[in-house]
């Protein structure tokens, strides 16, 4: 047994090293704000870095002797979150300021990683400029606010007018229900071979991209207006996979089984999101994309894939509800916030940096370079913003119809379960009913039994 013991130990370490890894942190310095943010995995895209570097310069000039240390983390969203959560676990490695997706912030608040900002917000005039939905984005179950949002986004259908012309479809296409989308896709498949008619993200690999951009855009368009198909905030219960849930899965199943979507192995590729805006759309390989308001930023001169003709080639249409029932249109919104960590040694200085980020000029600039939808009234009216990008008024107009994801700590786990249901239904490994059933089982364990059956949906 002697020589094998070290081997077994080595294997143990190999198997568990990842679970206990804990980097050595630099000691914190009272005059330095450590800012952690996500850097795009596309090396050509650096506008966030440039913007933050600019704000850092302003901040250091305005506060002599104080420094800002920018810590970019270049990773996919899931990996970025994991890394930041690990950093926030220890006072040695905790940054002062983190860029947090609203989708995870409640989970991190519950874990005790962040600190409430109410005392700062109370003295901050600019807070009145934020619209109410944005203020609520980082509000926890305890009623306190933990983050300052810097923009939001909406989602809709992008379509290629040139391909539409070839297929004999109108340039002002505006589908009234799900069937209209499928009809258009089938027409394109018939008349324009070699082109992917419709992309709706699916499966686990793209992560929240699939769940929000595709599944929830479908789900929130089912049932009655004002319904809560995913989570009932009044009862504080999660809604099990009812008819709307299964219909949304069936829609995806239809898209992929009729080969109206991309090849399934491409769809399940974790990098499919990048492929859509950097290859398929600019190269005219994709006719309709259910995607986010920010796509245009990639095609600007400063973007990762400059494409001057994009605004002439692409049209936008709102995502319709399932059968065209009121309100007729549907959109989902997310967004990111700046939050101060619980273990931060310099919360006051970190707050100062948030204020610097949110001067009106900086807020306008940021929403423009990151193609965000404004969450501040003064920014939304700024002519620089309203004229910054073709389509920005269209996507800003969807804010009226938009839905926000449930702001509960377990949402990320629910999202993972939805991704699995999508993948099972899309690949045909399970029928929509069976996929919904296994979602229910997972949901019950995630929500500790706090679930409620879906209400009757027409």
């Amino acid at each position, binding site marked *: 047994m002697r020589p094998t013991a070290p081997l077994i130990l080595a294997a143990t370490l190999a198997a568990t090293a990842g679970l206990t890894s804990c980097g050595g942190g630099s000691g914190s310095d009272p005059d330095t704000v450590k800012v952690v943010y996500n850097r795009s995995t596309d090396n050509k895209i650096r506008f966030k870095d440039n913007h933050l570097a600019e704000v850092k310069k302003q901040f250091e000039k305005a506060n002599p002797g104080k420094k800002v240390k920018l810590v970019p983390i270049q990773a996919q969203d899931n990996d970025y979150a994991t890394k930041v*959560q690990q950093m926030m676990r220890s006072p040695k490695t905790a940054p002062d300021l983190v860029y947090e997706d609203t989708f995870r912030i409640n989970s991190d608040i519950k874990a005790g990683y962040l600190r409430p900002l109410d005392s700062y917000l109370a003295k901050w005039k600019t807070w009145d400029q934020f619209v109410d939905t944005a203020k609520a984005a980082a509000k926890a179950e305890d009623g306190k606010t933990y983050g300052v949002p810097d923009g939001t986004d909406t989602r809709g259908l992008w379509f290629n007018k040139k391909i539409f012309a070839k297929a004999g479809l109108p340039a002002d296409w505006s589908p009234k229900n799900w069937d209209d989308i499928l009809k258009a896709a089938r027409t394109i498949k018939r008349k324009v071979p070699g082109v992917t008619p419709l992309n709706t993200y699916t499966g*686990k690999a793209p992560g929240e991209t699939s769940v929000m951009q595709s599944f929830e855009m479908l789900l929130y368009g089912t049932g009655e207006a004002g319904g809560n198909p995913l989570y009932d905030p009044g009862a504080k219960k999660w809604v099990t996979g009812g008819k709307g849930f299964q219909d949304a899965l069936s829609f995806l199943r239809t898209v992929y089984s009729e080969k109206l979507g991309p090849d399934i192995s491409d769809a399940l590729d974790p990098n499919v999101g990048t492929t859509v805006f950097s290859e398929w759309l600019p190269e005219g390989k994709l006719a309709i994309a259910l995607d986010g308001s920010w796509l245009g930023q990639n095609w600007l001169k400063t973007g990762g894939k400059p494409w001057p003709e994009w605004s002439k080639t692409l049209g936008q249409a709102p995502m319709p509800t399932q059968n065209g029932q009121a309100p007729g249109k549907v959109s989902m919104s997310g967004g990111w916030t700046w939050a101060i960590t619980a273990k931060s040694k310099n919360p006051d200085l970190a707050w100062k940096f948030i204020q610097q980020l949110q001067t009106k000029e900086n807020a306008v600039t940021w929403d423009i370079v990151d193609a965000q939808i404004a969450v501040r009234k003064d920014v939304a009216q700024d002519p620089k913003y309203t004229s910054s990008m073709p389509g920005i008024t269209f996507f800003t107009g969807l804010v009226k119809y938009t839905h926000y994801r449930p702001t509960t700590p377990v949402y990320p786990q629910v999202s993972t379960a939805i991704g699995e249901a999508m*993948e099972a239904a899309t690949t045909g490994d399970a029928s929509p009913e069976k996929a919904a059933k296994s979602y229910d089982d997972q949901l019950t364990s995630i929500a500790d039994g706090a679930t409620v059956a879906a209400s009757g949906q027409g």
Partner: protein
Amino acid sequence: MATVTKVAAAPTETPARPGPRRGRPLRWLPLAPATVMLLLFLGGPIAYCVYIAFTNMQLTGASSTDFVGLDNFQRAFGDDDFRNAVVLTLVFTLLSSLVGQNTLGLALAALMQRASRPVRTLTGSIVIAAWVVPEIVAGFLLYAFFRREGTLNALLDGLGLPSQNWLYTLPILAVSFANVWRGTAFSMLVYSAALSEIPKEITEAAEVDGAGGMSRFWHITLPMIRRSIGTNLMLNTLQTLSVFGLIWAMTRGGPGNRSQTLPVFMYDQAFNKSLIGYGTAVALLLLLVGALFSLVYLRLMREEV
């Protein structure tokens, strides 16, 4: 991932020394600092891992950590995905380590014994090159090879054969093949060393007695390198059990969970679902699988011919 580069000598039955053995505690003194270091940096984290496996620690979404006893283990045994991961891990290990790397490595080593020097050098360097490439790079290389628009299908198209979409239809086969491609060099090196140890006289004597190539291999070569086979199998298996980067880069455990072996499952539970406690419990179970394999090999090596 740690790659074990030192080949441990096969354990031998040490015959009892004549005379009573006197324990000399002082002999341990020079080893003390190293032992303390090992306990601190190796034993500590392992002990911590064992502790976490019995808690409900989460990466996010819960602020407190409670001791939950055997809950995580019970959950694992009732979890379809876990069972699926165990099966896939066994398939992956059997295919790529036991059958693939081991057999191919032995075949290469045996063939290279007879080959001329330039052929040997060339083959050796190609095989070893695949091994030297970092795991994640190998993963991307093979992803590019198996992809729908990848090299493999371009080759098949060129030959007029139907194209395959392995990463989607049979992902576990694709990753197993990738692991064979990457890990064969190690077995080849071990067996080359073992084969060169066989005294020429014995094989020549067998040849004179009229034994054919196959029977020489079966009756002389294999028994003589039995210990190396055992050692190699063990190292190979332990390495293969913990392969993560290769699978992550190629398929991320998908589509569905058709290539989700235990390490990928573990990562998914601990970091995507934030269930660190559960993920660690699965890591301990993986360790158990490795230990079981090792025990089997040790028994095999101990048997006298």
